[in-house]
């Protein structure tokens, strides 16, 4: 029995790698200084696209809108009136399709020459959707709920999906984090630490951080997260966070990594992992070089059934010659990698060799390994599954 891994096939449809759509697990996080980025902004159900191809948009421009049906409310009319379901129609004041106002009577019952009167008011503004003579229930459908999709990125519309949405293109830096909480936010980049190994403590966050995307170093403390929320920071990007601090701050323990809906005051992105972990020097340097720029940030993370990593996009005009796609090339000697598991967790180096034979680890697992030349010149042997490629 022999088992080895294939690379995922290359696809001709390779243009949406940064589109925010989930795609197959990639063992590496993108950290790119200059890239053409495209984002598909899609409506959840068909609707109207408000702009045409070629139009310029800002990040808060509404690009598409639709309506979802309103909330239904079930009214037990027959029960309230004290009549049989099959007799209910005689007492209905409204029919299917009629519009009703909250409090307006939809059914009326009178007996004993008007001595006994019963009304059934509508619980909300809406439309009578159904009247059931089997159950005696009436369903009042509330007003449609409007849904609007914003551009998220400042840029140009390069494609329109009729009734579906639009693709926004921009040019800028693209940085993926490993885990985040909170949704899409925007703000000016402000670096609050002097180095990638520095902890973000509360005194580093002041009133001038309001609306800003804060860049930290190795760790953010619980008190610093509270302070960031208190001053109204938009986002905080940092190397690591302690599990217990995050649990206390969010008020809930993370079970599975499907995030983005949390409302904790700001969007948090960690770039390395849980615990105190220096932000990768490349990532830190890149973020620092864009201090004062607008950043579009999304903490949404999904690790199951397609991978979605949190991201920081910094639109800019600076053109830099782009290297090829390191992930597509795979690992070769010289590829920069980060080790993502003990005993070298967080260490950064370059691939030294890729032996073919399986090797026994301390855990006695027989695995395919690689050797990594670390920054101090030492060589570490680790399972191939325990590294990720760093794009530089």
């Amino acid at each position: 029995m022999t088992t080895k891994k294939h690379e995922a096939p290359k696809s001709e449809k390779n243009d949406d790698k940064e589109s925010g759509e989930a795609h197959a697990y990639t063992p590496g996080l993108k950290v790119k200084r200059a890239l053409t980025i495209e984002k598909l902004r899609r409506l959840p159900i068909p609707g109207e696209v408000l702009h045409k191809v070629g139009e310029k948009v800002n990040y808060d421009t509404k690009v598409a809108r639709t309506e979802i049906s309103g909330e239904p409310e079930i009214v037990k009319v027959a029960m309230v009136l004290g009549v049989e379901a099959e007799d209910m129609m005689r007492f209905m004041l409204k029919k299917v399709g009629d519009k009703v106002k909250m409090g307006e009577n939809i059914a009326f019952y009178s007996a004993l020459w008007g001595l006994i009167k019963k009304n059934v008011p509508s619980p909300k503004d809406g439309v009578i959707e159904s009247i059931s003579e089997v159950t005696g229930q009436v369903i009042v459908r509330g007003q449609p709920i409007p849904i609007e999709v914003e551009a998220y990125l400042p840029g140009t519309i390069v494609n329109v999906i009729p009734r579906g949405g639009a693709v926004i293109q921009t040019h800028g830096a693209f940085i993926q984090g490993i885990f985040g909480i909170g949704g899409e936010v925007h703000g000016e980049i402000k670096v609050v630490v002097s180095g990638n190994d520095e902890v973000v403590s509360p005194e580093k966050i002041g009133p001038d951080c309001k609306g800003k995307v804060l860049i930290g170093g190795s760790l953010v403390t619980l008190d610093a997260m509270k302070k960031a929320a208190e001053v109204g920071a938009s986002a905080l990007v940092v190397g690591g966070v302690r599990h217990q601090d995050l649990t206390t701050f969010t008020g809930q323990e993370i079970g599975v990594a499907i995030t983005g809906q949390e409302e904790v005051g700001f969007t948090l992105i960690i770039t390395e992992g849980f615990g105190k972990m220096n932000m990768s020097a490349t990532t830190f340097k890149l973020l620092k070089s864009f201090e004062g720029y607008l950043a579009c940030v999304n903490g949404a993370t999904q690790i199951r059934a397609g991978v979605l990593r949190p991201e920081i996009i910094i639109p800019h005009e600076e053109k830099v010659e782009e290297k090829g796609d390191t992930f597509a090339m795979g690992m070769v000697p010289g590829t920069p990698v980060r080790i993502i598991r003990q005993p070298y967790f967080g260490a950064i180096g370059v691939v030294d060799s890729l032996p073919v034979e399986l090797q026994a680890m301390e855990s006695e697992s027989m695995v395919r390994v690689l050797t990594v030349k670390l920054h101090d010149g030492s060589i570490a042997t680790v399972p191939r599954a325990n590294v990720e490629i760093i794009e530089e």
Partner: protein
Amino acid sequence: MLMSSSHFRIAMPTLKKPIEDMQYILATDVGSTTTKARFFQKKDGMWRFYVAGEAPTTVEAPYEDVTLGVQNAVREVEELTGHKLLSPDGSGLIIPYDGKQGVDLYCTTSSAGGGLQMMVAGLIKNMTAESANRAALGAGAIVMDVIARDDGRQPYVKIQRIRNLRPDMILLAGGTDGGAGQHVMEIAELIKAAEPKARLGASYKLPIVYAGNKTIRKDIEGLFKDEFALDIVDNIRPTLEVENTEPARRAVHELFMEHVMSHAPGYNNLMKWTDIPIMPTPAGEGMAMQLIADTFKMNVLGVGLGGATTNVYSVIEGRFVRSVSANLGMSYSVTNVMKEAGIPNIMRWIPFKIDEEDVASRLMNKMIRPTTIPQTLEDLIVEHAVAREALRLGLQHHRTIATRLKGVQTQRTISDMFEQAIEDSYVKMMTIDVIAGTGGLLSHAPRRVQPMFILSDAWLPEGVTRMFQDSVFMMPHLGVTSTVYRDAAWSIFDKDCLLRIGTSIAAVGTAKLGDPCMTVELTMPDGTSQKEEIKFGDIKLIPLGESKEAKAVIHPAKAFDVGEGPGKQKEATVIGGIAGILLDARGRPLYIPTDDAQRRDLLYKWLSALKLYPEDPLKELVK
């Protein structure tokens, strides 16, 4: 009666070659991250596992076509064997084998894109809704929620829930035949009002299986027929005393093929490639567990411990029940195990000092980078600790499902109806003859005694229990193969898949550490005798090779039971395996000292006694 495999067939498929003439079989499992191909060959008249190939699953953008992943996995098989299997024009596989190339049978299971996700609704939580839940689980589904009239939620809360769920399918049950239908209609109207949207896109007509009171079928049809793909089947509870899940389960399976699979990217093509219908992975795994029970005529408790879910299967006196704990797993869901079990419950299995925050961070880091593997012994032991808790919680969940007879029509008394409590489960460890495990962590454990010990700690087998293990994760493949070619599937299963790890002999009861627990007299295959006196708190492994048998006479101490009652002697034939015979006198419930130092000492003693981990690094860790 044990359900035969025919219960899972939709229709007898037309095979390209009579089964007796077949030479090669290919089976794949399209998993959520990896597509696993297993190639089987008939050699010298005997079916054997030949080679494996694996590739990333390509269900997500940018690929969005599962057949690409299948082709890659099969291509690996081709490379490793030199045997051509794929059609040159990319239209599928060469079927049948023509003496040089091709394969005689191709079949597959699938859990890509999250598997079959269902919502279940019934009238009464503990009756029709519970029966519907069992039917859906039995068909291989992940049940996202069970809606019932008496589930304690306000209608608007239920509506909100249904709107947010986005299931692949809904199973609606409720009422007995001929009874009043009004309340079932209320639930039906609530579902319609919520306008549930299918997960797989707007063009998809959401399937609803109605398996309730037959007298309101016309009303149900009138309500649902325009907006849903409605399928009406026999009532799941035609009378209060009868549960009849089979028609609903069959309908779920058929709709899975017709609607869910055909809307998943590339599945229309994959369905054309296969000789028999695609089966949900857990259904294939369940069939493999049934194959064990059917062949050995024993009660089986099995588990598929995966990255995202833990599936537990029981076949007890012919009754097959499956449960799936959707968020208990060893990678994607590992932190949910920590959340559900609590860190102290994980820490109790770790024999060295380690900070709670350190363990939590390790697990969070595993969750965000789910494909990493433990390099250090310390990391391996932490993962094994989590596995015990995932298994324990999985079984706990299973017991809430395995409460009643299911499948074929089952007679019940009225008094039974109102006693469906958790403790009502018929899954009692003393009645379990075989424990079988599959899934990455168990199949890839560096030492084969590790899964035996992990399963023992988590499930606490009682009396005499055989322990089996899937060798290279091919139970789903063999499960689906067994639907058309049982003998081939069993031959491979028996010889290449089902590793016999050994037999556990465990006494139920407690005492003081060091008190006598049981004496086991063993007559070994070579005729020699061996007498083992085991004290409370001890565990011992006696080597006995695979398929070797020994006669055991077990004398429990007065306070202990090994199956015949407290203090009563039991005689049994015990069968060996890779690990041997495990004599377990650690108590039931398991005795773990509350004092931390004593706990670590005792754990270290157990781990050393079984040579569970490499000696020197372990000694270093616990120092």
